């Protein structure tokens, strides 16, 4: 109540109780008044016990509500944090358990390799793949034979956007499994005690020897990055026709063509026999299925070149044009003739090009 205060000031009546104005009292307690006015009101409080009590009561109410609101907000924040992840205090890494588990795993694997229960190196074995290297969990489909006669029909058999997304999801799932395995391996390696890691050290030395001996791999590694692609099954037009009405089929084909124009990048592809793989990559190849294509992506004159290492390359050592499409944020599909190979690369084409640029600068 501004008028009461004005009366007080103007008429010089110190006993007019401004605290009876609930709005003014509220503004006073909530510090919403300027300093000059506040001082005037405080001057009256010095001589008025009733007004002091009124201010105190209002303070209890307002501060009480503030604290209730604050507590409620803290409780909601805790709920959100608990829903998202463990709180700071509870987020303790059980290193003892991890170390113990790692020691047991490495000891068993090491003994297995030492006693030749588990073949290591050139012999193909399911267990070796699980223990030593990440391995694709499943194949997407059988590799189609590269058939030049079918190349002309490639446009007809372009997949729909929906099928691309599905393929991207499948690729992502595969890579997630690999990433999880790699992460586990990293943790195990970090946690491994030196005594139990003797067998692993032996393997490491063997791999290093192979790596050092192979200059081609060094050269390739300096030029590009290794990735694993998955052959995507060709989708026949007949299948598509059966799956959807004619109008929808036409629409999806148009959409696929438009998408290709908008989102594709020209790249070159070179096919090489798997025998040309560097030794460590050959070891890896033995643990991969036939549908997984080891690929070196390298930069040539500012363009990307995909070197596909295959069992039976169709056009050995000859570079030919291909298209590269990005599906979602983390999947790339390369189309060569009527064959399509998918790659899961976080960040897609941009990440790939940035990596390449960084390597080139180096």
């Amino acid at each position: 109540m501004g008028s009461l205060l004005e009366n007080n000031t103007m008429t010089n009546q110190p006993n007019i109780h401004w605290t009876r104005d609930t709005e003014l009292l509220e503004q006073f307690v909530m510090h919403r008044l300027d300093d000059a006015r506040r001082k005037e009101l405080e001057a009256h409080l010095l001589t008025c016990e009733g007004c002091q009590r009124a201010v105190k009561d209002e303070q209890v109410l307002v501060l009480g509500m503030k604290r209730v609101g604050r507590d409620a907000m803290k409780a909601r924040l805790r709920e959100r944090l608990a829903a998202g992840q463990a709180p700071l205090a509870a987020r303790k890494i059980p290193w003892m358990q991890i170390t113990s588990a790692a020691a047991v795993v490495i000891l068993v694997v090491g003994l297995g390799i030492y006693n030749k229960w588990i073949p290591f190196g050139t012999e193909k074995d399911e267990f070796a793949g699980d223990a030593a290297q990440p391995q694709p969990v499943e194949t997407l489909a059988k590799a189609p034979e590269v058939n030049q006669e079918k190349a002309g029909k490639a446009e007809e058999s372009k997949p729909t956007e929906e099928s691309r997304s599905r393929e991207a999801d499948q690729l992502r799932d595969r890579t997630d499994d690999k990433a999880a395995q790699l992460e586990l391996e990293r943790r195990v390696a970090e946690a491994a005690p030196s005594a139990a890691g003797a067998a692993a050290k032996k393997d490491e030395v063997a791999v290093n020897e192979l790596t050092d001996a192979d200059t081609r791999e060094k050269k390739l590694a300096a030029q590009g990055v290794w990735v694993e692609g998955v052959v995507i099954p060709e989708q026949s037009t007949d299948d598509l026709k059966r799956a959807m009405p004619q109008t929808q089929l036409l629409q999806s084909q148009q959409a696929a063509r438009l998408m290709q124009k908008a989102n594709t990048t020209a790249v070159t592809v070179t096919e090489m026999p798997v025998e040309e793989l560097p030794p460590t990559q050959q070891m890896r190849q033995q643990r991969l299925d036939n549908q997984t294509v080891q690929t070196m992506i390298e930069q040539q004159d500012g363009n990307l070149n995909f070197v596909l290492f295959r069992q039976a390359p169709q056009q050995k050592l000859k570079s030919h044009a291909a298209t590269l499409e990005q599906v979602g944020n983390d999947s790339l599909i390369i189309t060569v003739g009527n064959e399509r190979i998918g790659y899961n690369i976080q960040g897609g084409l941009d990440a790939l090009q940035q990596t390449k640029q960084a390597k080139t600068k180096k």
Partner: protein
Amino acid sequence: MSPSFSLIQSDQRLVEQLQAGNEQALVALYQANRKPIAAFVTRNNGTPDDAEDMLQEALVILWERVRSGKFELTAQLSTFLYATVRNLWHRRLSRMKREIPSEVDPERVEDDRASALDELIDDEQTRMVRTALNKLGEPCRTLLLLFYWEELSTEQIATQMGFANADTVKSKKYQCKKALEKILRG
């Protein structure tokens, strides 16, 4: 050293989220600041639990300031949170009468010790207000909290709670407050 432009930009976006009432922004701030805060509190006789509590309290203070329009982004949000936690932790230490570490200003602690009894009284009063608010029910509870705690304007409350206009909020707030006082008087 002045904060980098990109940090200020991302802080600005977070402040906008807080202004809009997005509580998830607090979670992002918690994640970004938990490590330095934990380091500070544990370095000063605290536990990880203390650190968590302090950071949550500082985040709630930030929320209040932003929501009430009293916050101005002049430094990084992490700087604000760190300074707030430091003050809160000094106060807490003095109440718990733990050894005062070197990072704490002794004069400040002495001042704060005087308020320990007030704190107990405040706790009791807060409990009474909480009980009264719960008895009051909705929409009064929310309306009063938005006005007195978050210090939103009557126009903002009208928009948020779907009242016709600011005058309706004023009138409703008056009724609610009277009802609350009645409950408190018993």
